[in-house]
């Protein structure tokens, strides 16, 4: 069954606790710094920023425990920072510097730390997370495996194979879909037939659609969902209608100006700044300065080392 929580963009977003606001702004400035460094040619390869989507992992942060597994994807910096609050380790990973959380081998898209993992292949981690959920159900009831995925990933068959097994076997598997309306450059309407809710329903899996970008509203909507997944050991699909404010990766945004403007108009950042200018200004400046300091610190480090013994 599908439920929808439709919240028009509130005129005044909910006032946030300092920790939530700091985390949101840390992710925002981290991503802006990455794009800035790419623009200057200081980074290798590619990266996918979550500008506009920061509130999703921040809303989920207090709902997850260290013993829950989180599977992230190509657009995972916010997911990582919300879980570990470790911009140094992540930036060192992206830059291949000492202190990199995966020695610079994985880079932006491939990170494993404790019970957090990201990979760069769409949909691949959903069956893997189902396997982990099977293990948790057997040995650590009450824990869950959460997978972040985008709307584009629903074109991959692996998602459906995993949903089928998760529903048949009653696995504590939570799919958090960050539906930002665009898969790289292809609009969702051109790549997804039917709806994500309809697809979840086909497997008898519950689905909740949340349209708000307000951290507190999203958190309130998701709290009973996670409780249900834990208590009943059942899969669940949560679909968040969100807005990708930045490009797909570095500078590749082919959307029309009005589409970009629409995404910007729904961006939590500007609306929060307008609603609580004094609180926002202090935190924003602090996190901007903090990220600048992280960048200076990590950029000054020597290159990361990948020891022979660690090469698998």
């Amino acid at each position, binding site marked *: 069954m599908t439920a929808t929580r439709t919240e028009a963009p509130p005129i005044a977003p909910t006032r946030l606790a300092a920790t939530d606001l700091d985390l949101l702004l840390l992710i925002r400035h981290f991503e802006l710094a990455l794009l800035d460094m790419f623009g200057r040619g200081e980074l290798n390869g590619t990266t996918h920023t979550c500008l506009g989507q920061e509130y999703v992992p921040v809303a989920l942060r207090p709902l997850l425990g260290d013993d829950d*597994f989180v599977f992230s994807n190509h657009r995972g910096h916010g997911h990582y920072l919300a879980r570990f609050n470790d911009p140094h380790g992540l930036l060192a990973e992206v830059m291949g510097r000492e202190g990199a959380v995966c020695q610079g081998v994985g880079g932006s898209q491939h990170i494993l730390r404790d019970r957090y993992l990201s990979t760069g292949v769409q949909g691949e981690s959903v069956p893997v997370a189902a396997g982990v959920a099977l*293990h948790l159900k057997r040995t650590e009831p009450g824990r869950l*495996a959460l997978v972040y995925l985008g709307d584009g990933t629903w074109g991959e068959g692996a998602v459906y194979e995993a949903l089928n097994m998760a529903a048949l076997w009653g696995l504590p598997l939570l799919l958090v879909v960050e539906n930002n309306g665009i898969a790289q450059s292809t609009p969702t309407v051109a790549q997804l037939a039917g709806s994500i809710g309809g697809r979840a329903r086909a497997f008898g899996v519950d689905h909740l659609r949340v349209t708000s970008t307000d951290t507190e509203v999203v958190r309130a909507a998701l709290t009973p969902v996670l409780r249900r997944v834990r208590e009943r050991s059942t899969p669940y699909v949560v679909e968040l209608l969100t807005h990708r404010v930045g490009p797909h990766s570095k500078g590749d945004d082919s959307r029309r100006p009005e589409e970009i403007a629409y995404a910007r108009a729904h961006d939590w950042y500007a609306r929060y700044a307008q609603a609580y200018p004094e609180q926002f200004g202090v935190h924003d400046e602090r996190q901007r300065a903090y990220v600048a300091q992280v960048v200076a610190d990590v950029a000054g480090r020597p290159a990361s080392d990948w020891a022979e013994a*660690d090469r698998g």
Partner: protein
Amino acid sequence: MAERVVENLNQALHGLLADDPALTVLGEDLVDPYGGAFKVTRGLSARWPDRVLSTPLSEGGIVGVAGGLALAGQSAIVEIMFSDFVALAFDQILNFASKSTAMYGRRVPMRLVVRCPSGGNRGYGPTHSQSPLKHFVGIPGLSLHEVSPFHDNRAVLAGMLATGRPGLLFEDKVLYTNRMYADGVVDELFRYDLIGPDADVARVRVDEEEQADCVLVVPGGLAARAVAVARELLLRDDIVCQVLVPSRLWPLDADTLLPPIARAGRVVVAEESTAGGTWGAELAQVVHRRLWGALRAPVRLVHSADSVIPTAAHLERTVLVQDTDIRQAVKEVVSGD
């Protein structure tokens, strides 16, 4: 009389499940009373209903689930019903399981074996008879093994899991019904022993005879064909062949294979797959590079024809490697024709 290969595999799985409470076996139609398409998993679910799971038809999904169990520190063995279908799990093997051992900058154990009933000569037709091993050769972090009548499968499977690296175990479907060899005896003419650091390579030779005219290197599924050829060549043509059957095909254990090949100076490598980017071709280049001065003839490869595999027995025989193909190759290498 020695047990059949399928019984050996079945007992191996029973033993592993008994030894390791962290092991899960999963695949399509494994659960009793059916017990798997080839009955390798017969009786397992009755003893361990929670750890032997029948799954939907979802090869990619179930290898992914097994990868998740391995990631969580558990062990998993997946049965692919016919090895042709392992193509559907290629992403999970190539991009998840094998890479996860190293791509996070540190060694991550992945105790995962994917069992693949493979090969032809049983009339299953084009999509149920292939030997897809070659498509997995050379993937970093992945090992490739093949069941043989010389190697005890409990040791093979336990060894694969113990490496902490994912592996594929290919199982020739004809071999299932053959009997295991035991006690170093092949027949009244040939003996075998297991050589190499892990006793991984079975060496079949004329009793007490060290020197051979030619060495035949084959995976387990071709072992019976190679032994039959060696026997016939000895009796009819007075050609002495030694047969080497490695359990692990990749990574190559060249250090164990090369000395016997160097002594003979002639080698034929036979495999049932089609030619092109194969295990045998990799072995041939290693032999040429390291034994160039000791070779009396170029390495000879034997493959199945570049063809789909027909269903009708008389047509299937024209495509897949048969005893006559191997015998002809050895005679040509030995006589220099």
